[in-house]
């Protein structure tokens, strides 16, 4: 297929990048785009400006909708690169089928671009903490059993053990979010409780923890929609563990979906946890990652800080509370809108169509248009902290230095009648 494509040399590609004429498309897996060196290339990352369009997505019927959402236009040249001919060919075929005629291939990424220190590459600053399924598979012991070598793998869920029991990644321990957050406040539990919970799972400050969950169609009409939002639960646990002081917390990119997409084995055997006795550091080890009510109020009054509402538009304008256990509707006055997606249990605006995390440039661009920038202190919140945790984790992956979760969120804020609130479309926003 690619023999019919024009070829660009490394120099030609550099020139095209310089004049901004080409739309460069990276056909490698999303994790390679993020910075993982999946094929042992000397330097990881993507060619600056390249849009992630993994060959894996070429199998989707609605592929063209992804292309359009990224603003890739047929009237301008599209330059494709990948690890190999096959990736380039699969994506090129879809572009051709969709009427894109100005296609070219760059096949020098492995041999010339990656090894050449003089050529620029961009990567997600902390991409090592957003792991591909292949990396995880290489670290699990053959034949099952708990992961070893300081790695603890957790299948996150909320009061839904059946979600774990029906099939999980071999070696994963079930982790109910209730172990780490309180069912009264929905905030993280006390430092002592969190430490004990982590020790019970065998997690210490020096552990490597990998978290993932399963997305299984949360419906806001269910009594417990969070029970079906497993990957959101994984981000929630990741935030609490980072706050507690676990130094190496990672999330499986795309959660359980990525594991099964890769054709990897699923288990129904539950390994024995190997509890630890000493955490090895004070809890919390990173208290600055959590903002509580007094700080949330300081942030609202500060000229260089944002309280970011990671909620849906109907919640933000006060049409719905978003939760069957929260009555009040509205938003915190002065909060900025970090639009999550469709409702309290969905994060479409932060994810790709296969549940992997969206291109960080796209997330950062949406944030920037709302005034959410890395030079400010940004505290992300939602109803009770799950969506806020996923948005926080994204900013943390990007290496933003002053990020936090406002843990109490709308649930805590709205429970005190003395706290002001607003409804309706805020001035300056399009309805």
């Amino acid at each position, binding site marked *: 297929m690619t023999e019919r494509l024009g070829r660009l040399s490394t120099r030609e590609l550099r020139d095209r990048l310089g004049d901004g004429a080409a739309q460069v498309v990276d056909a490698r897996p999303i994790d390679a785009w993020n910075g993982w060196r999946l094929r042992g290339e000397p330097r990881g990352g993507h060619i600056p400006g390249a849009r992630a369009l993994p060959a894996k997505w070429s199998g989707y019927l609605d592929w063209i909708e992804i292309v359009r959402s990224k603003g890739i236009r047929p009237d301008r040249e599209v330059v494709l690169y990948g690890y190999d001919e096959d990736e380039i060919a699969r994506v090129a075929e879809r572009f051709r089928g969709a009427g894109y005629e100005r296609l070219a291939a760059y096949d020098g990424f492995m041999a010339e671009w990656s090894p050449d220190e003089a050529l620029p590459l961009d990567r997600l600053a902390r991409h090592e903490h957003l792991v591909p399924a292949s990396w995880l598979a290489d670290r699990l012991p053959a034949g099952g059993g708990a992961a070893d070598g300081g790695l603890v793998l957790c299948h996150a869920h909320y009061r839904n053990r059946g979600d774990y029991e029906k099939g999980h990644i071999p070696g994963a321990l079930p982790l109910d979010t209730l172990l780490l957050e309180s069912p009264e406040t929905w905030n993280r539990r006390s430092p002592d409780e969190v430490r004990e919970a982590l020790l019970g799972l065998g997690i210490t400050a020096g552990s490597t923890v990998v978290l993932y969950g399963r997305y299984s169609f949360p*419906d806001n009409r269910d009594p417990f929609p969070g029970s079906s939002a497993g990957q959101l639960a994984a981000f929630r646990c990741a935030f609490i563990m980072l706050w507690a002081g676990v130094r190496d917390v990672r999330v499986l990119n795309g959660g359980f979906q990525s594991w099964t997409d890769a054709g990897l084995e699923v288990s129904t055997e539950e390994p024995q946890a190997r509890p630890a006795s000493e955490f090895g550091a004070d809890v919390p080890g990173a208290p600055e990652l959590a903002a509580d009510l007094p700080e949330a109020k300081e942030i609202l009054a500060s000229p260089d800080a944002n309280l970011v509402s990671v909620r849906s538009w109907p919640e933000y304008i006060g049409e719905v509370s978003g939760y069957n256990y929260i009555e009040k509707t509205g938003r915190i006055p002065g909060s900025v809108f970090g639009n999550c997606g469709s409702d309290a249990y969905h994060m479409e605006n932060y994810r790709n169509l296969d549940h992997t995390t969206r291109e960080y440039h796209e997330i950062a661009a949406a944030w920037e248009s709302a005034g959410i920038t890395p030079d400010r202190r940004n505290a992300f919140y939602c109803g009770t902290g799950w969506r806020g945790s996923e948005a926080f984790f994204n900013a943390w992956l990007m290496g933003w230095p002053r990020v936090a979760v406002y843990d109490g969120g709308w649930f805590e804020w709205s429970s005190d009648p003395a706290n002001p609130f607003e409804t309706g479309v805020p001035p300056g926003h399009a309805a």
Partner: protein
Amino acid sequence: MTGAQTEGRSIEAAQDGIVAELGGIDDLMEKYEHLIRLGRELRVPGPDIRRDEHSVAGCQSRVWIRTELRDGRLHIAADSDATITRGIIALLLRVFDGRTPDEILATELRVFEATGLQAQLSPARANGLVAMVRRIRQEAAAATGG
């Protein structure tokens, strides 16, 4: 009286018809464009359906489903802000619109697997399909008092 979308065919005949129509299209872009055509042709209700009480969360695009029980049959109106999703809605309505709630609840929906759509849609959009089917079944169950 049967629903406007089902044209008097039984549920199983409607499913067979969809499988015959879509199952033979191998090219993904052609299949996509077929869904887009169906989406454009879908007779959508007026804008008043686009209310929060009718919205279905979990779809990549916004979806609204409104049902009404008339003469023992569940009449379904649905809309989306995405044309491809309207195409999927068109298929769902051919199967379910104008059926009795018992028929809806007793039917095994096989068209999406048999046409390959379930596997070929991106996971997020396939999730939306699950959410829509679940909503229709919930409405059918509610209509039977279940």
